[in-house]
């Protein structure tokens, strides 16, 4: 166990690792945005009470939630181009895989938030003469959004961790760049420990921030309720 740690290699190739970190941030940000759109569409379909909208959305979410994320990456990169007839670069494939799978999970978060608002609220607002879309916008969504926030943040953190799988498609994310640095420097211990530490610090900071925001939101809604 007498190993001399030497992070010189990490420092020397910092530019490569920085590019990787930017690559990770890029796919995470784009996939979260697209995932929210896909999730909102799927949740609306599932809440529509129209059968031919409900069931495709249900099976889409079930399929994505019950298969490993890695197969979505490989499928998007190797199989989807056969269907589409155009080849996809690793970036496009990674975005497709990440945004569809996070969309499936976000859909459940959105749907859960909306159905968690009691029926009485709908009925009460309707009895006051509000139109259905007004009920949704003014009564249901403000309450639902607050309940969606914690699971939404949790899903987004999962997504950030899943971005590491994009390295298997040779997309230059942080992990892929680390593999390149490792193959130049033969310093796997320092390089991979460093990458793990970057993820750890980022995610821990984000989840602490999320807790602060959630605590503040629930306090402010409690005060306005009084």
């Amino acid at each position: 166990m007498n190993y001399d740690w030497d992070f010189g290699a990490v420092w020397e190739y910092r530019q490569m690792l920085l590019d990787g970190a930017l690559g990770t941030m890029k796919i995470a940000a784009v996939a979260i945005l697209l995932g929210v759109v896909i999730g909102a569409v799927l949740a609306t379909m599932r809440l529509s009470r129209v059968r031919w909208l409900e069931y495709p959305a249900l099976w889409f979410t079930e399929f994505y939630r019950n298969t490993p994320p890695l197969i979505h990456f490989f499928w998007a990169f190797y199989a989807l181009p056969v269907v589409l007839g155009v080849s996809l670069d690793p970036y496009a494939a990674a975005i497709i895989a990440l945004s569809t799978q996070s969309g499936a999970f976000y859909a459940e978060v959105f749907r859960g938030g909306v159905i968690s608002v009691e029926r009485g609220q709908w009925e009460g607002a309707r009895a006051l003469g509000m139109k259905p879309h007004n009920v949704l916008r003014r009564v249901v969504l403000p309450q639902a959004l607050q309940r969606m926030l914690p699971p939404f943040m949790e899903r987004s953190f999962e997504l950030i961790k899943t971005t590491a799988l994009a390295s298997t498609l040779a997309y230059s994310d942080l992990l892929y760049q680390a593999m390149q640095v490792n193959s130049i420097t033969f310093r796997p211990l320092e390089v991979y420990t460093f990458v793990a530490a970057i993820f750890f610090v980022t995610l821990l900071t984000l989840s602490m921030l999320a807790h602060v925001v959630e605590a503040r939101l629930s306090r402010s809604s409690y005060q306005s309720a009084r």
Partner: protein
Amino acid sequence: MEFSWDFAPVFQNYPVLLKGVGMTALLWVIAFPLSMLVGFFISLATASRNKVAIGVGRSYVEIFRNTPVMIQLIWFFYAFPILTGQQLTPVFAALCGLVLNASAYCSEIFRGGIVSVPNGQWEGGKALGMSRQQLMRRVILPQVFARMLPAFTNRGIELAKNTSIASVIAVQELMYQGRALSAAFYRPLEILTAVGIIYFLLIYPGSYLASRLEKRFALRT
């Protein structure tokens, strides 16, 4: 869309895929009980009153929950041997990563269960002269275990999905075999679709069970 489906490579090579399923199952069957066991001991630390034990336990949980599983597997396969001087086999490295990752989540399930028991139960047990250990074994755990079932089922599902990452360090499980076949036969669409369906068939019963359990316990309380 000029494409004709041809599932022949999938059917002709089903023994290869079956072998992959066997390895996936093996990883899961070893890793899941071990994760629960390790997770239980970690939860004893994080739910204890010893500050050092809490600190160590919490760090363990936070480290493994806040880093990608893939990096954990790669770390055990490529980085850990540098420290020990001994190369781990792919299967062993994969198991290390999977167990440490899942145990961090399992320990949070146990901890959540343990702290959910009202204080009065602890006090009542103490008043009867039970030690902390006896209380845990006879009063607390029997009550919370049923309540934790849905969460553990979900963890088992996540673990089953994570086993696919072992293919990255050349463990010959389902994903690895699927990729090898699709490279050999140039039929990625059929083979990867088949692999996805096999995973779905393996995992969906578990998540169906989890949703049933959740409904049952939601009704009871």
